[in-house]
């Protein structure tokens, strides 16, 4: 449990830093690394990565949306076939989640693959 929490927090921190200072797909790289380091099965790595990015993106999007008084999320929601602001925030989380989750899973399965070769 403790290692899971450490892994999760590391993923959140690295995802946040790379997304903020580099580009949208930059969290892929630390996530692969963390997925590799942690002794997770690929499925668990995916869930951890997904959860980390999902939580991070949803919380930040929620804060941005709140201080924006939901003006932009309403409009963008309409642009994407009328989904509401809340769904838009969840979608933001899901998209980040898939990216980071899949990356962590690649890292974990890479480790298993290398170990199996040895």
């Amino acid at each position: 449990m403790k290692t899971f929490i450490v892994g999760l927090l590391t993923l959140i921190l690295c995802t946040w830093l790379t997304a903020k200072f580099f580009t949208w797909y930059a969290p892929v790289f630390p996530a692969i690394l963390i997925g590799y380091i942690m002794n997770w099965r690929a499925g668990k790595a995916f869930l951890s990565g997904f959860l980390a990015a999902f939580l991070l993106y949803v919380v930040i999007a929620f804060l941005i949306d709140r201080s924006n008084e939901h003006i932009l999320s309403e409009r963008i929601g309409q642009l994407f076939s009328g989904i509401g602001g809340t769904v838009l925030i969840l979608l933001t989380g899901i998209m980040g989640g898939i990216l980071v989750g899949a990356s962590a899973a690649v890292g974990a399965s890479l480790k298993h693959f290398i170990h199996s070769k040895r």
Partner: protein
Amino acid sequence: MKPSITLFLWTLILAAWIFLSANPISMGDQTLPPIGPFFSLYDGFWQNAESEKDFKNMELNHPSLNGVVEVVLDDRMVPHIFAENDNDAAFAQGYMHAKLRLFQLDIASRAISGRLSEILGPRTLDHDKQIRREGIVWGAEKTLELYQKDPESMQLIQAYTDGINHYIQNLCKRQLPLEFKLLGYQPEEWTLLKCVLTSKSMARTLTTKNYDIQNSNLKAEIGDSLFQFLFPHAQPGQSPVHPGPWTGLKNNVLTSTQETPVYGYNDPFAAQDPQQAFASNNWAVSGKKSATGNPILCNDPHLQLTFPSIWIENHLVTPEKNVYGVSLLGVPHIIIGFNEHIAWGITNGGQDVVDWLEIKWNGQDKKKYNFDDQTLNTEYRIETIKIKGQKSLIDTVSYTRWVPVAIKSEESGKGDLVFKWSGHDAKSERELLTFLLLNKAKNIGDYMEAISVFPSPIQNVVFASREGDIALKSQGFWPLRSDMSGQFISDGAQASSSWTHYLDNSQLPATINPERQFVSSANQHSTDDSYPFVYMGSFEEFRGRTLNKKLEEKSKLSLQDMADIQNSNYSLKAEEALPSMLLIMDKEDLSSAQKSALEILKSWNYEYTAASPAPAIFNEWFNAMEKLTFDETTHEKSSHSRLPDQWKLVELINDIPDHNVFDIYETVELKESAKDIAKAAFVAACDTLNLENKSIDSITWLTHQKSAVNHLLRIPALSRLLDVGGSSDALNAMTSTHGPSWRMIIELTPTGPKALGVYPGGQSGNPGSKYYDDSIDTWSKGKHHELHLFTNAAEVSNALFTIKMNKL
């Protein structure tokens, strides 16, 4: 599962997801941006969600500044610019225009240079082709060359350009306006040429509407006498902008003898939407006619209502001026506004300043053409139109003495037509200074001097001063025509076929301190027939008559009266047409729904109010009557169709209900009169409104007209439906897409102006800002904001934040 397979599968999933996220998605006819970057917290749309923390003081330095500039943004995001000189004010204005409206600047400059397809793909190709064929950029380049002779003008637009570019250069990619992220492109550098192009853009919007091709085809089809009857030069009951008399003015131009009919052309660029309602009102009353004894000036230009708005509010203060009002994006200064001494406003003149001429080639290869007794060489300009996602299109545009060949034989179905337009021309290198001088004007002399070099479009420039003068002058390049032949396609082999000169300043119609104590214009005819110079164009007479009547009716007018006039939904057209339509129509055999529609019309007060069903019924009825009556002049090909002005139908119904024009062409054995047409049109109108299946109570003018402010990219999510009444012939000239784009009322009191103004939109072009549409409700209710001429930065009440600009 084998570790190698697991690794392969997860790598595949990741790669597929990145690929999907990084590419645009097609959904029906719209393309959504790549969801990866777009939904990303730090690259995508979330960064455009504006919040209080974005309103913090900032500072910038630039080498082209000469002193310190303070820009205070107030609680409607209006920049109050305090500068030490005009150039610095222009720099700050450019910077603020970019900061608030960068996408609009970018797309507008692309639209007027025929470069939309670069970012929007093939759907805008026709537009781009048309712009290139019209020689807009060619004309702007020629104009800029002339302006470059005036250092003062150049310094001003250079400073404005520097301001825009400073903003663009320091903009991080993540802060790009939302639309750039949606369309996936980057803003490009602003240039001096773009300043000239945007100043031509308004001229193009307002003056390129013409019917030369349609008129030529129609005249050939229906004969000269019916053509002259349906499309006369003037309306008998009109109330022109300048009442005259025109003693002392003389026209020395000889009447031309050229009368070769040229017809049978198609216009591939013929307007898709012939009902474009570019209209405007302006007026000023003298102290003698105002309730407070101070002159009052009003202006409401009716243009396409868009997000962002065509206008942006600014306040500019330098030691030489303190001026407030609205500007157009892409040019410095205030276009409509007021200062401590004067106020001014504009409406469109409506004169036809376009001639289409048939070029006479000398030889199949079109390398030479005949012009009077000479054979001249054709020149060429290669236009490369880049298209997003496709190979570029190369269009070679031929240029003759007359300017560009805009319509080619393969499109016209006949020969080649050249497009002669006053907007191509420039006469004075100081044209760009018109609005700077107007911004600084202190009295009527300064006003006359300032506008004397204004090129195009022809504008009715209204004026009032604290000193008590009121005036209105129709200013701009007014072609000196010898006759009315310019309303048809003319023979391009003769120099005399089109104008060669424009009227002198002293020949342009002006009204100064008239006896009736007011001046006014609402796009009607500029003058009566006694004005010695020939002109033609598109004029709307009902609004002008209504306005003059309202101004004459009351001996003293207050600010509230002025607001009421601007917001008036009353239709003189309806009042003059409906009683006769009701009277002549045969009321037998009507269904109960039709009868109740008729009852609603009988008790209608001719007000186009949003909640009333009557305007919807009347409009449909009148429109159906127009179509049935003028079947002679409507045709499936838009190059052959033109409806007479609406007053013509009103006149026919009232005075000549048995006229032949009511006879429907197709029914050979029957001879219809206004009576039959009225009935058929009424039934058709009820069908259009679906009255048999729908309760009449569910119909309102609001739901029928569906007025909206649309985003420039026509994205519904970024647009808004409006809750307003009004009609194109009412003073509150609302149509579904056009309407009062800025309503301004200025009282010039001895202690300074009392100013009101509002436009439907907001100062910010960012859909993620609360300043995107914050004035819509105020505007919809017919209310205004109070506007103030603060003299220094500390005075600005409700300041949000300040941007300080220093010399580097």
